[in-house]
């Protein structure tokens, strides 16, 4: 139940970011620091989310089949595969490694 509450707050704040942009004076847009932080934060968060999903297990680190998925996804991206192919390659690798016995 509490997940619903945070989920709805997240939705509300997402809309708040969007609508605030439409009411902020154009001058603010010219502040390079604002847009730069929005940019670095996007990169930092995505990098962090990738790592968390690849090697974090609860409050510890784990080297399991997800690492294989990470490696194969990186190769697929270097080869310029489309998003859906990258995701399927990641899933397939993790599933295959588990069949082969690497949890």
């Amino acid at each position: 139940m509490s997940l619903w509450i945070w989920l709805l707050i997240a939705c509300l704040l997402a809309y708040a970011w969007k609508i605030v942009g439409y009411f902020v004076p154009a001058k603010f847009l010219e502040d390079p620091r604002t847009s730069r932080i929005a940019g670095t934060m996007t990169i930092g968060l995505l990098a962090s989310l990738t790592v968390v999903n690849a090697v974090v297990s609860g409050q510890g680190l784990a080297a399991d089949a997800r690492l294989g998925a990470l490696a194969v996804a990186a190769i697929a991206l270097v080869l310029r595969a489309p998003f859906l192919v990258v995701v399927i390659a990641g899933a397939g690798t993790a599933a295959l490694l588990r069949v082969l016995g690497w949890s």
Partner: protein
Amino acid sequence: MKLLASPAVRVGISISIATGLYGISFGALAVTSGLNFWQAMALSLLLFSGGSQFAFIGVVAGGGSGIAAMGAATLLGMRNGIYGMQLNALLRPTGWRKYVGAQLTIDESTATSTGQTDPAEQRRGFWTAGIGVYVLWNLFTAVGALAGSALGDPKQWGLDGAAVAAFLALLWPRLKGREPIAIAAVCAVATVVAVPFVPPGVPILVAAVVAALVGWFSHGRRDEGLEPDVEPYGTHHPGAHHEAASTHNDAAGAGPGMPPPERTDPEAGA
């Protein structure tokens, strides 16, 4: 159909289809992360910003609390505020259009609009891509969520591996050049270091703080990793990055508010 003769409308439609399809992966990952069908749908219908949606379920999947998931999603939605400022200056929407347009403000609609030069086309591009992505993204979220529920144990199908691949694919097109790569590396290390010391989900927020500090104190390009990666004509729109060819990959991307799968077919906009 006179409307289909508009390049912006054609670009908007192709982006809608390409992006909408990724709703399948979001829906499937959402339910295997522990959300139910309606929670997955609420994120697509109400939050409607792919990066933030993936962040929310990513934190939940990692055992993080609802508040940490909310925090990560909100921070990742920050750039939509910048897009809102750009679109407000560009389209000058009034009345209800401002409030509806705000909800439709994501990477794809912003790029389709800013990629046009004629004001009428800018308007058409925004609304076509915005409404198109919204409808298809929600439709395919439902399909993915239903399929995901039917799969059973997500690990057996490697769906945790799919999540890893999805986040890397979202990050990839933003790593254009040495500095973004350095920021990504520093934040990845900060995450790993923080994991044993803080509750699940919080390491992601630690990385966000680190990234914000880098942004505050460094002097690189102002639009670093920020501008939409959709390039409506397959050419650069003003403010686009200079590409560092070795790391740039147009072929990655996903979801509303995220880089597209591939550069829009040049013919679609020609």
